């Protein structure tokens, strides 16, 4: 019994000290963090030094960064990526709505479409579009228009169709996920107000679905910018193709690949900034959730 009394007094003594909030606190030192941080910096420095002393002519990189044919290639990339993405978004929305249709033919068609264009490699699809003249030598719309396919299916058109349609198979799923993520009560409230299916989708469901759609679409857009480089294989002279044409002549392979890399990073950085701006705008009304 006496020992219990003693410990009680000691506890009370500690308590009062803590309660007054004067007790000094000693943070733990995580030495491992210093070591790993230092290791990373050292490795980075070694890599930078290696490239500095490696056989890269940085002067050539600087020289070709703004060469005319590279800038034209850059322009073609900047034109192609949004156009193909736009095609991918429009077709993707149509496919997503078909996928959710109560009509079994519609939804089965959408499933088959996604299976086909997601399931085969993008590069292969580009080759198929580019060489479609082998299957259909002329394109004819009766009484209106007839033309050799080879004149229609230029590298530009083949790239646009190949990348856009392939993209739509992915964006369709993004749209569908976004639409499903909107609370069922929203559609019911719209219906109860006498809004029809199309109106409700356009004014109520899609604006809310956009919150879930924009981040992955931003991601897909970045993927699209890089996927335009595949078009170099079918003679569309975007950045990579432009860089290749130069190094086939002057043999500065790595230098020109670095030039292309710099420009891709530049475009993607701009897109990332644009995306966060867009996300803030679409998040209106949701800030405090």
């Amino acid at each position, binding site marked *: 019994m006496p020992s219990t009394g003693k410990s009680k007094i000691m506890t009370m003594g500690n308590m009062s000290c803590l309660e007054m909030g004067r007790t000094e606190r000693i943070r733990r030192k995580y030495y491992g963090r210093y070591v790993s941080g230092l290791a990373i910096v050292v490795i980075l420095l070694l890599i930078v030094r290696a490239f500095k002393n490696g056989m890269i002519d940085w002067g050539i990189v600087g020289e070709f960064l703004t060469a005319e044919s590279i800038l034209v290639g850059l322009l073609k990339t900047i034109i192609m990526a949004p156009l193909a993405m736009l095609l991918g978004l429009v077709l993707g929305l149509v496919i997503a709505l078909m996928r959710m249709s109560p009509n079994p033919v519609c939804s089965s068609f959408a499933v088959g479409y996604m299976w086909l264009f997601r399931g085969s490699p993008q590069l292969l699809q580009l080759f198929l579009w580019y060489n479609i003249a082998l299957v259909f030598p002329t394109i004819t719309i009766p009484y209106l228009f007839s033309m050799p396919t080879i004149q229609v299916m230029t590298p530009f058109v083949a790239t646009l169709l190949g990348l856009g349609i392939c993209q739509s198979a992915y964006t369709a799923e993004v749209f569908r996920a976004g639409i499903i993520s909107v609370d069922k009560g929203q559609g019911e409230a*719209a219906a109860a107000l006498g809004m029809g299916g199309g109106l409700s989708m356009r004014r109520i469901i899609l604006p809310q679905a956009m919150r879930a759609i924009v981040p992955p679409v931003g991601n897909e857009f970045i993927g699209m910018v890089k996927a335009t480089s595949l078009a170099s294989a079918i003679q569309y002279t975007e950045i990579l193709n432009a860089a290749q044409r130069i190094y086939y002549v002057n043999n500065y392979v790595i230098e020109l690949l670095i030039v292309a890399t710099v420009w891709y990073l530049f475009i993607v950085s701009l897109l990332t900034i644009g995306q966060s701006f867009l996300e803030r705008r679409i998040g209106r*009304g949701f800030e405090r959730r």
Partner: protein
Amino acid sequence: MSNKVEIRGLTKSFGSVQVLHDVDFTVKEGEIVCLIGPSGSGKSTLLRCINQLEEAQSGIIRVDGLIQGWSERSGKLYELSPRNITAQRSHIGMVFQRFNLFPHLTALENIIEAPIHVRGIRRAEAIKQARQLLENVGLANKQDSYPSELSGGQQQRVAIARALAMKPRLMLFDEPTSALDPELVSEVLAVMKNLAEIGMTMIVVTHELGFAREVADRVAFMDQGRIVESGTPEELLTSPRNSRTKSFISSVLQ
């Protein structure tokens, strides 16, 4: 008085679970009816059938004499087009348990959305009307707030104003206060009382027996998909005849 809502032989199942058993139910013009009963008794489903958020397997619902969802020609019922169903719904206001305000629109935008895009009235006129409605529900200063910036009670009052903006001939309330913190219930009930006073026909699914006693013309008790008993609030709440009504009321009052 004429019948506003007339329901005959309504039967509804979700899969193998039958939630409405041959329900007959009538609401007169200007009448305020409270539907009470344990959860799962089919009250909400009955309400949702009236404005066709659910489709019943059999039975007929008439609102203002018009069969909901079907048109009758030479002894057969033909399914209405989505456009016609939408038009029928636009005359019936509905208030949901979870408010279901549009979160991407401000309070004012929530209210003017359907009048502009469904009724086709001019934006300026819709805004004028919406401001008046917001004032009526005591939220004149909240027109630019998003739903996430409003309390539950305020959201529900905006939702009521939104439904009223369509000038409905009938208002359906699906447990309008069940999702609210207790101290916010009265502000919503007060708005509903005002509505009752101006003669709106209302069907209210609720657990607020006090509101039912004070405001309702008639109270109906539902259990296991059937309307077990209905009568004046006095009759039903004070001296219920049916034993299930009795035990439900005593369990709610405890």
